[in-house]
C-alpha cells in the first residue's frame, strides 16, 4: 500500500489549517488525540482540536508529548465484549457486538505506529484473523506526528525505529517552525487530505540522522541465555505487577471469560492479561510452570526479542518498539535497556 518515499505527495500547512482540518475530521468521525486527563496524557476522543495536548508535558513526567498508554488501547481495548448470550427457555441466542465507527487517531508517535504494525502480525496476518481487531484497524486512520527529540527513556533508534519514521502511518506530519509538512503515506491517508485546499509542495522532510544508541543482541543469540542465572538476579526487584505489559505498545495477551449480566443473560469478554502476573500460566490442577518471578520476567524479554519475532515471521526485527514506557512506569526500576546491554556484553 505504501509508496516509496520519493513518490509520496506532500503539502505545507499552517497550524491554523491543521486545526481546521482536525475540527472537520472530528465532526464526521471519532477523533482520538493526546489529551490531558487529570494530570496525565492519554489518547482520548476529542470534540475540537483545542482539546489536544499539543506539546503537553505532564507535571509528573519529564517526558515530552508521549501519552502514558500507547495507541494499542484503541485497537485492543482493556476490556472488550465479544458477544452476548441470551437464554430464553430452551433457546439460546448469541449476538456479536462489532465495533464499526470510523476513527482517526491524531498525534501518533512512530514507536506506537510500529507497535500497531507488530500487532497486525498476530491479529491480522495470521489465521484465524481476529475480527474485532480487524474491524477496528480497518476503520482507523493513523495520523503521525514526528517527535522533535528523543525522550529520556526513548531507545527506538536501537530497535530499528526513528523519531521521524513515517513507515507505519497513514499520514505523517513533520513540524517545522510553526508550520507542518504533511505527507500521505497510504491511499487511506490520502483520502482524508483536502487536496483542493492545501498547498502541495515538493519539499521533503529532513533526512533522519539518528543512529542506534546501543547494540541489541541478535535474535539467534537469545536461546543460549535461557538458563542464565542472570534472570533470577535481575528479577529480584520485580514486583510482578503488570504495569510494564499494560503500557507496552506490543504486549497483547488477554483472558476470556463469560460473565453474567442478569438472570439468563451473559456476555463473553476479553481483557488484558500479562505474563508478569502470578497466576498467568497456571493450568488446571494448579501447576504453575513459571512459578519464579525470574522465569516470568525472562518470558517478557524473550517474548519481545525471540518468541514473537520467531513465531510471526518478523525477520530480524524485534517486538519492542523502544518507546521506553516500561522503564518509566516500573515502580522497582527494572530497565529493559540495561537487560539488553548486559546480554550483549555476555554474548
Amino acid at each position, binding site marked *: 500500500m505504501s509508496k516509496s518515499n520519493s513518490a509520496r505527495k506532500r503539502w505545507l500547512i499552517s497550524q491554523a489549517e491543521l486545526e481546521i482540518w482536525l475540527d472537520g475530521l472530528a465532526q464526521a468521525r471519532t477523533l482520538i488525540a493526546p489529551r490531558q486527563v487529570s494530570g496525565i496524557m492519554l489518547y482520548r476522543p476529542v470534540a475540537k482540536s483545542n482539546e489536544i495536548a499539543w506539546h503537553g508535558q505532564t507535571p509528573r513526567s519529564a517526558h515530552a508529548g508521549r501519552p502514558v498508554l500507547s495507541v494499542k488501547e484503541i485497537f485492543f481495548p482493556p476490556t472488550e465484549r465479544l458477544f452476548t448470550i441470551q437464554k430464553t427457555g430452551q433457546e439460546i441466542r448469541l449476538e456479536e457486538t462489532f465495533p464499526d465507527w470510523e476513527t482517526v487517531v491524531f498525534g501518533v508517535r512512530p514507536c506506537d505506529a510500529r507497535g500497531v504494525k507488530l500487532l497486525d502480525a498476530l491479529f491480522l496476518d495470521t489465521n484465524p484473523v481476529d475480527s474485532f481487531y480487524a474491524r477496528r484497524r480497518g476503520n482507523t486512520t493513523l495520523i503521525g506526528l514526528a517527535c522533535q527529540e528523543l525522550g529520556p527513556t526513548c531507545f527506538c533508534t536501537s530497535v530499528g525505529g526513528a523519531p521521524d519514521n513515517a513507515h507505519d502511518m497513514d499520514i505523517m506530519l513533520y513540524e517545522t517552525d510553526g508550520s507542518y509538512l504533511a505527507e500521505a503515506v497510504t491511499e487511506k491517508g490520502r483520502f482524508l487530505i483536502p487536496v483542493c485546499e492545501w498547498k502541495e509542495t515538493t519539499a521533503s522532510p529532513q533526512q533522519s540522522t539518528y543512529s542506534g544508541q546501543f547494540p541489541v543482541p541478535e535474535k539467534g543469540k537469545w536461546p543460549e541465555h535461557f538458563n542464565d542465572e542472570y534472570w533470577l538476579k535481575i528479577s529480584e526487584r520485580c514486583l510482578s*505487577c503488570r504495569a510494564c505489559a499494560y503500557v507496552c505498545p506490543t504486549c497483547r495477551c488477554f483472558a476470556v471469560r463469560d460473565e453474567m449480566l442478569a438472570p439468563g443473560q451473559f456476555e463473553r469478554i476479553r481483557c*488484558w492479561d500479562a505474563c508478569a*502476573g502470578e*497466576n498467568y500460566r497456571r493450568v488446571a490442577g494448579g501447576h504453575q510452570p513459571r512459578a519464579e518471578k525470574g522465569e516470568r520476567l525472562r518470558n517478557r524479554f524473550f517474548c519481545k526479542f525471540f518468541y514473537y519475532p520467531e513465531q510471526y515471521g518478523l525477520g530480524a526485527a524485534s517486538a519492542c518498539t523502544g518507546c521506553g514506557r516500561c522503564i518509566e512506569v516500573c515502580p522497582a*526500576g527494572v530497565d529493559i535497556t540495561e537487560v539488553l546491554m548486559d546480554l550483549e556484553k555476555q554474548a
Partner: protein
Amino acid sequence: MNYEPRIIAFLCSWCSYTGADTAGIARIKSPANIRAIRVPCSGRVSPELVMRAFDQGADGVLVLGCHIGECHYDTGNHRAAKRLPILHALMQFAGLEPERFHLDWVSASEGERFSRIATEFTEAVQALGPVSWRVAPGGWQAAAESLLPPEKEVPMPALDCAGKTDAIRAKAKELLTSGEVGCVIGYEVGPRGRTRPAFAYSAEEADRLVWNPDVSNNLVSYLPVKLKPKGKELPKKVAVVVKPCDSRAVNVLLAENQFTRDQVHVIGVTCEGVSDGDGSLQVRCQACSEHTPVVCDTLVGEPQAVVHAGTVARVDWLEKLPPRERMEFWLSQFDRCIRCYACRQACPMCNCPVCLYERDDSTFIGLGIGLNEKRTFHLGRAYHLAGRCVGCNECERACPMDIPISLLNQKLAGEIEKTFGHRAGLAVVPSPIVTVLSGEYKEG
C-alpha cells in the same frame, strides 16, 4: 410515580431472621421491599457481600445481627460491629449516601423492632430515590474534570546522605562477612541514575548500597516472599534497610506472623523526608511526624525533630463535597485505572498468595477492566488495609495512571484512629478490626 427501592437485608439466622419471622407470625406489617438473605451470623457479612449487593443494583443494604453479648458464636457479631462501620465510612467517602447502608441488632423475639427498623430504613432509602452506584457498561462520562486542590511544594531539606551511605555499607559488610545474614536489601542507583531496590549477597555487592533523597521504595514488601520457608527449611536471615514509615510495616507483618523477629535484621535509618523526583518533598512526607524507625536492630543517623509545613488536607477537601460530586470524583479517577495491580504489588501489606479480587472463582468481582470492577477492587483493597496501612504511599507512587489511591487509605487510617485509637505498626499488634470488641459496647 411510586418508587419502590430494592433493599437487600442480610439477616442473622439465629436472631434477626427469626425476628423477621416473629414479625410475620404476629402479623406486624413490614415493607415488601426487603429481600432477605439468611446468613449464619452477621459476622459472615463480609464487606465484599455488601459491595457486591450495591454493584448489582441494590438501592439499600441492611445488616441485622444479634445484640452484642447474645451472639450464638460468642463474638461473631463483634466483627460486624467493628468492620461494617468502617466499610460504611469508606463507601460514603466513595460517594454513597450514608442512609443507604445500615447495621442494627434485632433478637428473635423482637418482631416489632424488626418491623420498625425495616420500615424506617425503607422510607429513608425511598426518600433518596434510585441509587446511582452501579455503572452500566459505557454508561459513565466525565461531566467535568474533577481535580484535587494543588499540592504545596516543600523543598527538600539538606541531608547527610554520604554519612548514612557509609554507615549502611559498613553494617551490611559486617553482617554479610560474619554470615549473620544471607542478603541485605537496600537501595542502589541504577544505570539511569534512578534509585531502586538492591539485593546484596556479598561484601563486594554491599558497596553498591546507597542512601539518598530518592529512597522511596518500601523494601519491606520483599520480606514475606524472601523469608518464606522452603519446605521445612527456613531461609537465611535477611537484613533490610528501612525508613521510619517502612519500619512500621515490619511491625504489622510481625503481628500477622508473616515472619519472626529473629529472621530479620532491621537497619533503621532516620529520615527527614523523601524527594518526589523534582527536588520537593513527597506530599506524604510533608505531614509525617516520625523521623526515627519504630523497630530496628541497627540505627543509622541521629534522631532529630524536623518540622514540616502542614500539607493540604486532601481528604478533608473531598469529604466536604456533596456525595454525588464525590462519586463523580472517584469514578473519574477509577476510570483511568488499567487494573495492572502495581498498587497491590508494591504494597507490603498486600501479601495474600492469591488476591481475593483476582481469584478465578471470585464471585465478588468480574474479570473485566470496567468501572464497577475497578472501584470494587480499590475500595476492597482499601478496606483490607484498614488498621494495617502504614502510609508509605508506595501504591500511589507505583500507579502508572496517577490515581490518588492513598486517599482511601488515609481516610480509613483516620477512621480507625478515631474509633479504636490505633495507628498501624507502632507496636506489634494486629489491626483492631480483626479482633473482638473490648470494653463496653454501646448500641446505636
